């Protein structure tokens, strides 16, 4: 069974009445299916125009739920999105980026979802729509645990909203894996730094993925960065204590101890990269 609604209302009705499985890019749905038969109907939401595309508004940027990673990577966006666009280019492969969607990445709620750290740093909000209405949740609340979200069965994620407060900040994304391309990260880091006229950091956001059930911001580090000059060497501000929110585990990719160690290095490098970008621009 396969449902391909042409409008959001139609899709929401179908979802509420059939218990269908939502299908968009298919890059998580089909691998999870393996060679078992599909028992629930698919509700294909890729024919809904209102779910696609990126809109820049004065107070926010709206990214439609089924916007693909390729579209994000190619989009003309302010520098605060550099981390997200870099992450887009690291999702799987070009083939995956051409199909995989931003909302799918969030709904799959993998600890290693490439899109999550940059969107956490952007303090993105997730818009959920059902027949009974719309609501928005901060991303950090939307993903409530290991592969778990707050999406109700009758809801479709329709968009991701990014407030404009930090979108002109410098941002960087680093992904560490055991190979180039098609790799699940061992650690990844998104960092954003905003500076005042004097070149001092007046806002910082850092998020780390693959080191806890859900990617985490590092608030103590963010606080410690504020007031420092945004200059090379900023990475040395990072201490092991700043990584306290992380709880890395051992798996086939790496040991937990290594993850903690590498996360500290990667966070420092991501901060340096933000500063480097800024320095390059000044020059």
């Amino acid at each position: 069974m396969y449902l391909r609604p042409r409008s959001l209302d139609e899709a929401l009705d179908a979802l509420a009445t059939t218990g269908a499985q939502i299908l968009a890019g298919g890059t998580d749905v089909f691998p999870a299916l393996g060679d078992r038969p599909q028992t629930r109907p698919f509700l294909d939401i890729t024919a809904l125009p209102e779910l696609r595309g990126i809109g820049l508004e004065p107070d926010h940027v709206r990214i439609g739920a089924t916007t693909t990673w390729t579209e994000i990577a190619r989009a003309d966006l302010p520098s605060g999105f550099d981390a997200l666009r870099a992450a887009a280019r690291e999702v799987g492969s070009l083939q995956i980026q051409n199909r995989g969607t931003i909302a799918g990445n969030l709904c799959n709620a993998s600890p290693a979802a490439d899109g999550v750290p940059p969107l956490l740093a952007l303090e993105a909000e997730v818009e959920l729509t059902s027949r009974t209405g719309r609501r928005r949740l901060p991303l950090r609340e939307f993903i409530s645990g290991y592969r778990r979200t707050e999406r109700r069965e009758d809801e479709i994620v329709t968009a991701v909203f990014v407030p404009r407060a930090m979108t002109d900040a410098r941002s960087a994304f680093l992904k560490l894996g055991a190979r180039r391309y098609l790799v699940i990260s061992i650690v990844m880091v998104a960092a954003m730094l905003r500076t005042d006229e004097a070149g001092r950091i007046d806002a910082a956001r850092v998020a780390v993925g693959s080191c806890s059930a859900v990617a985490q911001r590092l608030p103590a580090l963010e606080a410690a960065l504020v007031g420092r000059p945004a200059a090379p060497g900023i990475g040395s501000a990072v201490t092991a204590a700043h990584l306290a929110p992380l709880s890395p585990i051992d798996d086939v990719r790496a040991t937990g101890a290594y993850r903690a160690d590498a996360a500290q290095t990667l966070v420092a490098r991501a901060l340096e990269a933000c500063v480097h970008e800024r320095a390059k621009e000044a020059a």
Partner: protein
Amino acid sequence: MLDRVATTESRAGVALTVNGRTVEVPASPAARLSKVLRDDLGLTGTKVGCDAGDCGACSVLVDGEAVCSCLVAAGQVEGRQITTVEGLPAGHPVAARLQEAFLRHGAAQCGICTPGMLVAAVALLSRNERPSETEVLDAIGGVLCRCTGYRKIIAAILDVANEAQPEVLPEGGGAIGARIRRLDGLKKVRGADIFGADEAPADALVLKAVRSPYHRAAFTFGDIDAFLARHPGIVRVITAKDVPGENCYGVIPPFADQPVFAEKETRFRGEAVAAIVGEAAAMAALDLSDFPVSWQELPANTTIDAALADGAPLVHANRPGNILVGGRVVRGDVDAALATADVVVEGEFETGFVEHAYIEPEAGFARRVGDRIEVQACTQAPYMDRDDVARVLGIAPEAVRIIPTAVGGGFGSKLDLSVQPFIAIAAWLLDRPVRMTYTRPESIMTTTKRHPARIRARAGATRDGRLVGFDFFGDFNTGAYSSWGPTVANRVPVHASGPYYVPHYRALTRAVHTHLVPAGAFRGFGVPQASIAQEQLYDELADRIGMDRLEFRLRNALRADQPTVTGQVLGEGVGIRACFEALVPHWQRARAEAAAFNAGSQGHLRRGVGVAGMWYGCGNTSLPNPSTIRVGLKRDGRIALHQGAVDIGQGSNTVITQICADALGAPIARFDLVSADTDLTPDAGKTSASRQTFVTGKAAELAGRELRAAILRLANAGEGATVTFADGAVVVRDGGHERTIALADLPTDEHGYVLTGEATFDPPTSPLDADGQGIPYAVYGFGAHMAEVVVDTELGTVKVLKITAAHDVGRAINPTLVEGQIEGGAAQGLGLALMEEFFPGKGENLHDYLIPSAGDMPPVESILVEDASPVGPFGAKGIGEQALIPTAPAILNAIHDATGVRIRRVPATPDRVRAALLAATSARG
């Protein structure tokens, strides 16, 4: 509300626009596009390697963008322009040039990834005809290749703008050494080659296996009749009691121990207990978890230590201590030699399971033809398959016909049976064709792996840099069944010295059974693992003596007049010294560059250079392994070459033809290939042990010479005569005489040819005595690799910058194909060194099990040394396995050179390298 739902198009059938044509397909719109393209539209050029977006083999263009068609529901792309490999040339002007460039560069080996590579590259080239290398890497990074090492693919894509001249094939006598394009290449770049899953009769039933979820388990079946009644369209359930012959097979008959279906308990996770056979639609709708079987997990040996512990459960009751076999080679008095050596180093080394990760999962179909069975499947060993299928069916080997398909990568694992016994038994019992295609998890879970090894070794040298002794002990985890465990246990002691003169030597091995996936043959049969230990220890010796590491190897390189560790004196064709010498200028350049980089670097990046040597015997170890080649002159003047050496991508179809052509003195263009088929081609043995160019090639040379002699006899001409092949005739010129023999009127022999040359070659070896002394191989290949790496010391990541590979191949029959083997072997060696390890029960997929992607492979500079073998055809030696062996130790030695840390447990993943760096820092601190 409900009628609004009804407008959401839930219907059967889907309209697709594929390769410019819109067709209505009676498939579910929910079906994977890959499946619809292959099963409903017959477009089997789109390959399925993983069904999970991890390999990119199924890439197609949707509106010009590459996507994995296994991740797209057919209904999602209605109205979009879908282009498959079959439609590339018509839709994209650059595609034909790209296919041409792939052929020219040897960018397709087995060809299973080729359609996906072409699609991914066309997506790039259609936007950007002159891309940078980085853009090429980004474009093909999502398509995995296990054969080529990517570099020839990258070169082909970068070279696409250059218009090529059409290939001119060499005339008679000019084939050896020519870089001719692979003779089966065109169908590979067109996506037209038929692999295991690409063909089956339309009415074929589908078979799936029910497999153990535990390492070791007892099991009982529930009500199978009720299961059948519940599932219309399921035709039969087959279990151990239904096996018509012996429920036992194995690649080495005296050790055969593997049941088709487990009888009382399963011995590894993934072992089959039953097969379900049914109509395709019913099988597609079947959830295997519905099958009535209950499992009782039993205590399992999951490590070598557990298997060797007192009181460990026996994997096989007749193998005490869980020891399958031991291997032994002893020469001189190693204990005395090491006791008096100036310098002795020692170490323990460990390697894990390594998965072959060919992009083609095992597949095929079988059908019963009267009292015979035909099995068409991917395989490396048709005659061995024939004998084992006969055994499980309880029929004569001659009643079995094995038709190998194109093989989408083998590397050793497709020597063992996979789908064959299941489909053969089902087709035999049901008298209907039956097909089976392994899923990727099934392939990884159940097929053989490289043996995990645990090695202890000591090496000693004099102060002036002479090796005096090497003492080696290795346990190899052979898993639940024998497979090639005895071969590994016996091959390793012969090779563990490396290609050096070692007067005092002891190498002992054991193959140890565990309740894990069987370990079998994988490119090198255990020698790569041994080499990781030996080459690192020799580096340490050089360091302790204070001698340059390459100089140490040069000083100890085996000479043709020195005995090997089995006491064999090769006499000629020992090119190891030449290989090391060829590396000297590269070594000096690379060492200087690394030193300059490190001197100028304050940061976390350190560069290093490592070298390692290799030798490897071609063919079976002290056992017969004959090949037979038949070549026939047809009445139309064309030449039929019955070439039974299965081409798994390495190029035997091409190389064997080149050899036969020059032996016969006929142009390549005159040849018609009859490829492996046990009804049509004599036994050319298995594609394994780097034996096809050497052994089958020698048979092809002899057969070609025999046919030439027959032609000369017919013409009454002497040995010095020239033979020219024409349509319907051969022309023989002898001195001033010229005789034209019209072929059309001549009688034909039992094979249907006017004249036939048929020859068998079995390499001359002798049995090894109790100390492993004797002549295990007639020919060895030699080689040495140099790896340049940069290590990120803060993260423990290692990037290989370049591999320089010198190989003594005796004679390079086709240098392009030789380079292809070297680059592909180096890629697998890089994977072994840095990223590949399979943990049974975890990560049975290609995103947890990592093989190198295009972005991981550095340039490979191949240096071909030709120190001719007196035995091989035109002097040729094997190269398939040789190419992989020195890469990993060269990389590990380079890591040490860069950082001062020794990685004795591979793969050298970032966490292991970083841990070693931290440990070294705290030890110093």
